């Protein structure tokens, strides 16, 4: 059915490693990550950019990978949840989510942690209101957000303490 549509070849960097994929130009970055690169950490919650479960970083910007056609990701640097820990050592946000109860069912967690990474990148010492604002594009149905916000604040504090 799709045979008439042209595939394109796209090179990009994913979690620090070069990747080359063949895909339809409008194929979603989310599907390429999950189905071609085996990176299933990004989740599809709504497929229309509302829930943020598929959030990844693209050249440092937080994007909903369900809304990014693969062609738009050509030459970019993508970071997914699989790429933020340093080997077996958890990223400080991952550690803080674990300690503070920031993850319950876990389905929003990868996107939420990337949104938090993005926030701390821009604003290393946010206050509670800034954290709430910064994560407002990522929906969580389990936690009521407070323990997520506390995790982000704890992680930010630990950076300041270094």
């Amino acid at each position, binding site marked *: *059915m*799709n045979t008439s549509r042209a595939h394109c070849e796209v090179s990009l960097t994913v979690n620090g490693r070069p990747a080359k994929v063949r895909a339809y130009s409008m194929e979603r970055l989310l599907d390429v990550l*999950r189905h071609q690169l085996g*990176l*299933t*950490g*990004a*989740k*599809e*919650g*709504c*497929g*229309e950019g*509302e*829930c943020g*479960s598929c959030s990844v970083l693209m050249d440092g910007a937080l994007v909903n990978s369900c809304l990014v056609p693969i062609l738009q990701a050509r030459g970019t640097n993508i970071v*997914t*949840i*699989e790429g933020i*820990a340093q080997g077996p050592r*958890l990223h400080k946000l*991952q*550690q803080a*989510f*674990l*300690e*503070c*109860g*920031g*993850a*319950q*069912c*876990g*389905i*929003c*967690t*990868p996107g939420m*942690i990337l949104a938090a990474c993005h926030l701390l990148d821009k604003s290393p010492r946010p206050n*509670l209101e800034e*954290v*709430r*604002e910064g*994560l*407002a*594009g*990522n*929906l*969580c*149905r*389990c*936690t*009521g*957000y*407070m*323990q*997520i*916000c506390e995790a982000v604040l704890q992680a930010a504090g630990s950076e300041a303490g270094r």
Partner: protein
Amino acid sequence: MSVPRKEGRDKVTGQAQYIDDMSLPGMLYGATVRSRIPRGKIINIAFGSGVPWDEFVVVSAKDIPGQNCVALIVDDQPCLADGVVNHPEEPILLLAHPNRHLLPKAVEAVSIDYDSLPALFTIEESERCAEIIWGKDNTFKTYLIEKGDVDSVWAKADYIVEGEYTTGAQEQLYIENNGVIASFDPEQGITLWGSLQCPYYVHRALRKLFDLPEEKVRVVQTETGGAFGGKEEYPSMIAGHAALLAMKSGRPVKIIYDRMEDMAATTKRHPSRTRHRTAVSREGKILGGEIEFTVDGGAYTTLSPVVLSRGAIHAGGPYDWPNFRLRAKAVATNAPPHGAFRGFGAPQSLFAMERHMDRIAAVVGRSPVEIRKRNFLKTGQTTTTDQTINEPIDLEGLLDRGLALADYHRKKDRFRQENASGTRKKGIGIATFLHGAGFTGSGERYLSSEVAVEVCADGGVRILVSSTEFGQGTKTVLCQIAAETLGLLYEDVEIAQPDTQQVPNSGPTVASRTVMVVGKLVQSAAQGIRETLTKSGSLRDGYSREEFRDSCRNYVAQRGKLVSWSRYRPSEDVFWDDEKYRGAAYAAYAWAVYIAEVTVELTSYSVSVNDFVALQEVGKVLHPVLARGQIIGGVAQGIGYALYEKVSWQKGRMQNGQMTNYIMPTSADVPTIRVYFEELGNVHGAFGAKGIGELPMDGPAPAIVNAIEDALSVPFDSVPLLPEVIFEKMIASSTNTSSPIPNGVR
């Protein structure tokens, strides 16, 4: 102690495997052709052009080898419609293909002709019985609860206060949609992996649908991305669909709903209507009352009788009713069946009760605090089902503590002064309530749950239960209980993945029963391990952790295996009469005081919650971080229920089935929720725990709506309370200046 969540590391690193992250060789993708009308006969099904139909596997009701039903309480719901449909989105045909991108077009290309029949969409239409759509009178279930002699109280009453309260449907909105993978082998039968709460519900449904013996159906729960009741009964439906396609195609089949399909086709919280008529003395004491509690069950029975039961038993709130009559009814409409959602009927009837308490207070001329204190249940008194409250609960003390934490009295005075001018009106409202833990009445007796704990070769132990983890912390807390019982470290205890071939049936993961009921069984099974080791002579009293582990290793090396089983045994003093609906409805209740502070912005009529105090007595708190997380998360869902989450219906179909137009709270909408616990303990649960998961869903809606009334001096009797509803009611009340006394008051 707050140990890290067992599966937490996998979740924060993105390694946790949810159903859509899994794939099997040769797997097909499945999709569902659904009814576009609310009710009618299927006249013809045509497969349109432009689709390579020979590449598709197509399943209809005729392919079902066993009974065409989704087995639950009453087997009235077909797995696939056979000739008639009773609600929009009812499944009719199933399609499967190796390329998932081809499925939407194929579903679209199936055209179905119907002979439409008249349909019913509201409780009132169903009650009128102008059309009979279910049974003899459109009624799935009724209950009558009676206590004392309510007919004698009306003549003695100084006031008779009436009210009618309604609540809307609410979508569970787990972020992971429903999904399963099924495989079929003629020799081995069906294996089903899925996002689900109750493996043995699915197991039973598949056995009936395929007419297979127990051992030929295997159900495995995969990591589940939220459930909230929404994956209690519905997975039996989607599991049946995937398994039918797998059987016909001979290949594994995955079905994952997209958001719109999940919202439109799966269950939601039952819409409800509650009518109160209450006899009250001059001092504000309730002398007696009648409640009529009605829920809209949708097109098939599913869980409505049990939702109705829990709602009915909670309808009187935490108050003393010397005389009482409640008539409860679940009616049929031509909407997709409504189902389990955290709270399970109680949020509906308690919304009514707590709004009605404020109405009684207004009529009698007492404060909401005073009216509650005058009527609180006390130790030794009986509930509406004649259950004696034995535990030393002090609701007055609990309320006083809540008021102090919220700075209630000072704020109430301050808001009254400040509200005299300006467009920002502030208010503060209370809800006091209870929630029963475990199955209702004889439920736990019938479930007869079983758990096992086994010794591992490395010297640790492993818990075997069908109780599932979907965010609440099942795995973590059950492991904590076993570790504590045996004097082991949390790390020494594992818990098996729920797989019906590996684990006994510890009952469904619902009804705030896991920690209290299953936890107690885990504790007793763990004790069994210790007793066996002690009797075998390899473990001394006062053993160390290392000695226990050595003893386990030796036992396994010498005898191969050590498994300890424990089955639920009801307490002798817990009695329930199914016929009269009297007795101990629940083994234990959690008690709570919630206080909400709101601001209503009169330029937009929008409401924001500015402070929220959630104070509860839940027995012993076993894991403070998880317990607090349950409360905050439940309160956030309750804020959504109160203020944002409106399901827009059109002829039985949800019109706003997207996250874009069905609005749940974001991190910017949820205030700081201040969580406090009282811990009285409880003899029925492991280490004194009671149920906790559903409780926080009950209180926010009435506390918030009571606060809005406090801010605006206009009563509102329904949720969700959207800005347009507030606007309309305020316009109406400003033009109607006749009487300050609420309607329905003598």
